[in-house]
């Protein structure tokens, strides 16, 4: 009973729920602000994502006559639930070690594509031809970027598993143990064998977040936002909130896999340190890339993802295997 209650609290307040939403929205606001500064303009206020959500909540909800009503309404809830649960599995080093201390890489790997699947579901249920096109592009892109992610996770798990030796057999998929091992033996992000894997993870980030140069499924100039075309009002707000959660999840996962070091034994300092690391990762992998590039075609993006990040992750995997 207390376990269930604790799990619900972790999903609703920290690190899921309120904390993840606040951090995700802050990231998005900062992202827009920094992008504006890079283009030498003022940009929107930092609370702009909150304002956008407030606006969407006051708007009318419209459902197309030809849409599949149930799936159309269910899709955003599906994505939101998946990410809300996933956020509770993300460890905040030095503060929180993951739900029931069992945060497992494979669980996260299965929960991560849920928002993309919700987009696909909503896009195909909306009965719009642009939604259908967005659906096929999202699916292709997802197939392409999930492969390097799995290999990155596998190389981290194998490295930690090998070093833990007798305690586990082969790979170690428990995030708790991965974080604990790195806190004792140094971060994996500065381990030469893992640098290709880190690069592959950095390349994976813009793809999974659907930002330029990989905003192919929602391309607003050619597909008119693709799967999101028919969504408006509170339903679109739910998609925005899901995306904020996802930002927290992918950044937090990156921190847990590569830089889970702590600088103090006092938890508030560690929390601030975690937030700073998240912001640095976001600015590096999302904002800078986004403001410096245009948009790939879907075939170019697919070819890019199945060659370069896969090759990088494979390098790490082989290096770890030979160690």
């Amino acid at each position, binding site marked *: 009973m207390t376990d269930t209650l604790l799990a619900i609290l972790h999903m609703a307040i920290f690190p899921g729920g309120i904390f993840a939403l606040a951090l995700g929205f802050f990231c998005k606001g900062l992202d*827009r602000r920094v992008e*504006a500064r890079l283009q030498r303009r003022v940009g*929107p206020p930092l609370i702009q994502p909150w*304002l956008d959500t*407030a606006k969407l*909540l*006051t708007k009318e909800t419209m459902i197309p006559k030809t849409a599949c009503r149930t799936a159309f309404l269910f899709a955003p809830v599906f994505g939101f639930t998946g990410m809300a649960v996933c956020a509770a599995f993300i460890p905040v080093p030095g503060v929180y070690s993951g739900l029931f201390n069992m945060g497992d890489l494979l669980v996260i790997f299965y929960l991560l594509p849920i928002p993309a699947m919700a987009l696909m579901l909503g896009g195909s249920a909306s009965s719009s031809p642009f939604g259908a096109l967005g659906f096929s592009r999202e699916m292709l892109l997802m197939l392409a970027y999930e492969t390097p992610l799995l290999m990155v996770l596998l190389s981290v798990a194998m490295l930690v598993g090998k070093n833990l030796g007798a305690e586990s057999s082969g790979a170690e998929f428990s995030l708790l143990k991965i974080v604990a091992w790195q806190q004792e033996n140094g971060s994996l992000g500065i381990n030469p064998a893992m640098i290709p894997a880190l690069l592959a993870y950095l390349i994976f980030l813009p793809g999974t977040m659907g930002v330029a140069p990989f905003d192919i499924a929602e391309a607003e100039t050619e597909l008119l*936002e693709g799967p999101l075309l028919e*969504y408006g009002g509170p339903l*679109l707000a739910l998609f925005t909130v899901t995306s904020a959660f996802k930002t927290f999840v992918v950044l937090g996962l990156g921190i847990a896999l590569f830089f889970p070091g702590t600088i103090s034994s006092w938890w508030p300092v560690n929390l601030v340190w975690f937030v700073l690391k998240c912001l640095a990762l976001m600015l590096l992998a999302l904002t800078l890339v986004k403001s410096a590039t245009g948009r790939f075609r879907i075939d170019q993006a697919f070819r890019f993802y199945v060659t370069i990040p896969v090759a990088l992750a494979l390098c790490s995997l082989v290096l770890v295997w030979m160690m």
Partner: protein
Amino acid sequence: MSLDKTLKKLSVRSPWLFRINAGSCNGCDVELATTACIPRYDVERFGCRYCGSPRHADVVLITGPLTTKVRDRVLRVWHEIPNPKITVAVGICPISGGVFREGYSIEGPIDRYLPVDVNVPGCPPRPQAILEGVVLARSIWLKKLGLEE
């Protein structure tokens, strides 16, 4: 202040723009989409975002004198935009017909069919004028929600 009122008051700080071309000569479109909406004039500082889908729009900018061919399509797209919405007529054509006034193929002025909230006259209007129209639309939006600025 109630939650509903707070949300409404905050909502006007996020006007998302959508553009409809009602048979324009393209002059106003160039001035609107590729001049007023570029980083130099920074429309994003008002919280604006240029969106591709009418379902996401709050402020709809209409250019052109509303030709016969395009009339039904413009009306259809306009009705796809969820309420509350603010209509801004950009250029002299949607306001009076401009140089095309009383032409055989002109159905305008546009306020015969749609309620226009802000007029931005000019042939074409300057980008600064278009931005002023968007900012004016925000205060009209507040009035529509029953709140004064």
